[in-house]
């Protein structure tokens, strides 16, 4: 088993772990962290697969994708944290409110 393959497997593991945490946890901070773990998993897969050709120089394209992905992840996390803060101000809890109520 090559090192790159091991890294890719760890990436897949992080993705699954994050998915599990995203589903089971109710606190929004944990959900946001879970999404970030999932994102790191995907990035790890991309970086690991850049070595797939077996040459000494890794393929730079997946690295470029990871950099773009990190920028996206940072902006998404910022938006998610802002929304969490606003929700906390509004409801006093950092959790998703129940489905829409009947009356306003």
């Amino acid at each position, binding site marked *: 088993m090559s090192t790159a393959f091991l890294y890719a497997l760890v990436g897949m593991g992080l*993705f699954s772990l994050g*998915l599990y945490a*995203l589903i089971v946890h109710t606190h*929004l901070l944990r*959900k946001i962290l879970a*999404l970030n773990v*999932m*994102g790191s*998993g*995907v990035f790890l*897969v*991309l970086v690991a*697969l850049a070595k*797939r050709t077996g040459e000494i120089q890794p393929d730079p*394209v*997946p690295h470029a*994708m990871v950099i*773009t*992905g990190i920028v*996206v992840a940072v*902006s*998404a996390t910022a*938006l*998610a944290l802002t*929304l*969490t803060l*606003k*929700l906390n101000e*509004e*409801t006093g809890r950092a959790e*998703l*409110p129940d*489905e*829409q*109520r*009947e009356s*306003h």
Partner: protein
Amino acid sequence: MGAMFTTIPWASALILLPLAGGMICFLWPRMVNALGLITVFATALSVIGLGWQIINDGVYHHPIGGWGAPLGIDLYADGLSLLMLSMTALVGICISIYSTAYFKREHTTRFWPLWLFLLGALNALFLSADIFNVYVTFELMGLAAVALVALAGGRDALGGAMRYLLAALLGSLAYLLGVALLYHGFGTVDIALLSQRVEPSPVLWATLGLMSAGLLLKTALFPLHFWLPPAHASAPAPVSALLSALVVKASFYILLRLWLEIFEPVVDDKSVASLLGLLGAAAVIWGSVQALRQTRLKLLIAYSTVAQIGYLFLAFPLAAAAGVTAWSAAVYLAVSHALAKAAMFLAAGNLIHFGGHDRIADLDRVVQRLPLTAGAFALAGVSIMGLPPSGGFIGKWLMLEAALTQERWDLVAVMILGGLLAGAYIFKVLGYAFTQADITHESKTVPASMEWAALLLAMGAILLGFLAVPVLSLVGIGDPFGVSEVRP
């Protein structure tokens, strides 16, 4: 003039104009309404310019900065992209006119930049030629859309926005993992190159699973629709219209593209298409029944979107033997739904502005008091139900034809039942709109531009019923459905 018209890179303008416009809106917050409208109209003109080029010269292809695939970013537009861009421009113009009157002063400065970013992301998505660029546009679109939902403020809107954000990010990550695997397996992210290189392999199956799951979540296909009703119902009316009309269509468009170009030719197994069709059928029934059960108008319209998305997926199992008819039907339904659903949400916004609530049972004689809005809702309803003459009718007729020729009576039954249920929930609203409610309430006047914007969109949905031949011949440019390809 003709020469100049054809040499301008319209596709780049389609992306740059809204992005630049959005940033300019931050600089001059006092003039956002005018700046926003100018940008939206200029973008629409660029769609016309691009359409001119495509009709004259065929498929449009533009390597940005001259780099070209596989390293550079390519823009690509065929008939299908052009139809989606035109739909975005048309719905965008009407919603923009509506928004100038709808939002209060302090909200306009937030709405316009976000909406223009969303417009730029949508245009970029419809012009994308590689799967990684699609991921970036998805995120740009998703973040703008989530922020737009949160504009309304308050518990419901913030909760809806948060739920939407989590679902959108999860969908994007699944999609991105699929991109990583496809790149690993076949060494490119360019859709055209991928379609030449792909062959059946475990990597392809894993990719199909990940990408479909991500895109279905974003398109809100049953049972992954849980985030859609709270987000679409709690957003401000023009935002609901944008989300239901355009944003869910974007992920459907990508799914359709990937399916046609990459997966369908190599996936021999019919079970994937059957599963998508089954989920579509379940969405039609479940969404319609849920819509019928709602007591709030905006939730009813949002569940109707869940049902109408289901129709689009009925094309997958039908495409095996009647490819062109089924795909044309799905695309036609997507466009007419965009017009009709935007009209419905705008009409609902008028009713909320008028009466201060959206309880269906308390719609107090709005037919007499807001005839244009009630007319817009009814005309849009005609298209949603699939009655002639309307765009929805043409789409459903083509889909029925595809199902009848293959003797898929189960899908025929679903389509007819879905139509009847749609009739039931639309007449439920119209029934209360005609009668006097128990509680009468103070009413506010609705600006004429808000009423006319809704009516124009609804009339567009009806008019689409007369344009089947030109629209379908336009979609055929560049052969997006693979007509010339000989199928076994």
